[in-house]
């Protein structure tokens, strides 16, 4: 008995050493393989991310050429309470409210419509999801043409707002919202379609036999069973909507954005950085956007944990 345990103990020590060196080799290999990705992330994501926090602490004088100086946390409150920032935040919130619910509802309706076994339905699925692969620039130019007061679709329909839609403080933001909704529709459609694949047909058939009409099946079965998917789409498109920039930049431009109440947050950040040459204030606004995105992501992760209950 004693002999046996001594033998085992001695063997275990040498085995431990062997295991440790093997684990070291494995970790070395793992980091070697990770290195290219880490380098790319480090240069383009982690470093700028950390640098952003440093920028918040420095103020750049309005006169070009003078060096930035350390001000600590002192420019945070003035930046966050400036009308420029608060107005931009309100604009962004309005924009999010205009864009997100509509793109989700339309995406869901299109997904439900395309979720049937019909000949040629794949073509519709392709069309519905195609907006995902169209670039912001192309979409903006196309919509810009449609909204053109002379050659566009609106005058052809007899609608002629004055000043023209994209130069009109009432219509500029909704017009950009429409383009963004159109752009988001593909993503929303794809997410909802993927979610629908996971709702078993038999459940809807059972509900049908149990007496549920099409509307009840949609509301009482499809929507609750899709709720994790819908929530995911909600969070993702809210984050995207907070980060919208291209359409405003291309269609409205920096001279008009603020006047037309279309200066969404990212636009304001870029404007503050480039036009006003104020990296400190821009960094503070970027941090606010980061915190909003972080909050939404945490919400989504918590919900994903609860979603386990729906799985069989």
């Amino acid at each position, binding site marked *: 008995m004693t002999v046996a345990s001594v033998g085992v103990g001695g063997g275990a020590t040498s085995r431990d050493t062997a295991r440790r060196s093997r684990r070291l080799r494995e970790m070395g290999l793992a980091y070697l393989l990770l290195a290219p990705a880490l380098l790319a992330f480090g240069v383009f994501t982690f470093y700028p991310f950390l640098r952003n926090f440093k920028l918040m602490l420095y103020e750049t004088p309005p006169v070009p050429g003078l060096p930035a100086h350390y001000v600590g946390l002192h420019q945070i409150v003035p930046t966050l309470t400036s009308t420029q920032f608060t107005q931009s935040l309100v604009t962004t919130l309005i924009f999010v409210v205009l864009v997100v619910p509509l793109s989700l509802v339309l995406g869901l309706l299109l997904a439900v419509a395309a979720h049937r076994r019909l000949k040629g339905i794949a073509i519709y699925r392709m069309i519905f999801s195609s907006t995902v692969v169209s670039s912001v620039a192309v979409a903006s130019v196309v919509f810009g043409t449609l909204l053109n007061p002379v050659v566009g679709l609106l005058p052809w329909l007899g609608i002629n707002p004055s000043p023209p839609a994209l130069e009109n403080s009432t219509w500029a933001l909704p017009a950009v919202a429409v383009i963004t909704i159109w752009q988001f529709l593909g993503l929303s459609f794809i997410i909802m379609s993927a979610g629908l694949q996971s709702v*078993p047909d*038999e*459940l809807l*058939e*059972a*509900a*049908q*036999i*149990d*007496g*549920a*009409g099409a509307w*009840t099946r949609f509301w009482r*079965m499809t929507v*609750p*069973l899709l*709720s994790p998917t819908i929530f995911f789409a909600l969070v993702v498109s809210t984050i995207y909507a907070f980060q919208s920039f291209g359409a405003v930049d291309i269609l409205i431009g920096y001279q008009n954005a603020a006047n037309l109440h279309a200066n969404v947050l990212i636009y304001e950040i870029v404007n503050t950085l480039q036009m006003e040459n104020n990296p400190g204030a821009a960094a503070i606004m970027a941090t606010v956007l980061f915190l909003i995105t972080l909050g939404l992501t945490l919400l989504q992760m918590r919900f994903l944990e609860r979603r386990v*209950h*729906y*799985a*069989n």
Partner: protein
Amino acid sequence: MAEVSFAGVTKRFGDSVAVDGLTLDIGDGELLVLLGSSGCGKTTALRLVAGLEEVSEGTISIGGRVVNEIDPKDRDVAMVFQSYALYPHLSVARNIEFPLRQRGMAKEERTAKVKEAAVTLGLDALLDRKPSQLSGGQRQRVALARAIVRDPQVFLMDEPLSNLDAALRVQTRADIVALQSRLSTTTLYVTHDQVEAMTMGDRIAVMSQGVLQQVAAPEDLYARPANTFVAGFLGSPGMNLLPGRIGRGVDDGFTVEVSGGSVPLPPALRTAAAGLVVLGLRPESLRIDPLGPLRAGVTIVELLGAETHVICTTPDGSRLIVRQPPQAAKPAPGDQVGIAIDPDPAALHLFDAASTQRLGP
């Protein structure tokens, strides 16, 4: 309560025919089992009654009313799915209550009905659980409760036992039969399991490749299969089918000449047959016996405890399975053996070689 009738019902999916000219009547209160291997059209037939598929040709009636154009929700049928199809986001109580809610039943009445169905199926302690918190057997009972709570005209059951383990399946089989006979609700029960079919059905309808092969009570189906498909499908192992030819024996008697021997025909079968036939012999009608009329080589001997299957090959390569009682002598693979046939005339089945249909009584 209602009878269900298929009249010349055909269902096509594109170019393939899932159900081909099905004519079948299920009596009021009857439990009819649709039996067949997978892809034979039995589930499609069930879904046609439910209204989940549209009939291509023919009519389906429930209680004398043609339902071809009637919406599933207005057919007054309840279905138990193979996967149970419980609503995962609703509690057990809400699952059972769902069909009643859709009918706009008052709350007190709903609660009372749910309670009654739950007690019947022993679910009253589980009403607040979600389906994901239940075992397979419990889920199966919730699916049954959701079907019976509505008091429908017809139950449709699509392989409801196939996801249960063997012991639970035997128990639930008996429970469903008892429940059905107490409620005496017309029931269409789909299965590929012949033991389920034999033990549960008032009658069994055997289907193959979309075509109804035979409808009969279990004992008739087993004793007088209408064709070689039914003969080979029912029984475990199924009936031995040996190609043969009618010949003249001694004393003016008739025989069937098969590979490995010649079998005298009983008087009842003499006039029925001529030319090429298929001789059907159930394994339990055969014994290893050196004096028997058939000769074959033993290939495999399977010991099952209660019985032994001796799998033999006749000179032309046909397979012949003999079911030996456990105490009988066991031949070894490679032995040449004689095989005797039960003297009961009902032990011999004859089928026409061309049409595969049964000959004689």
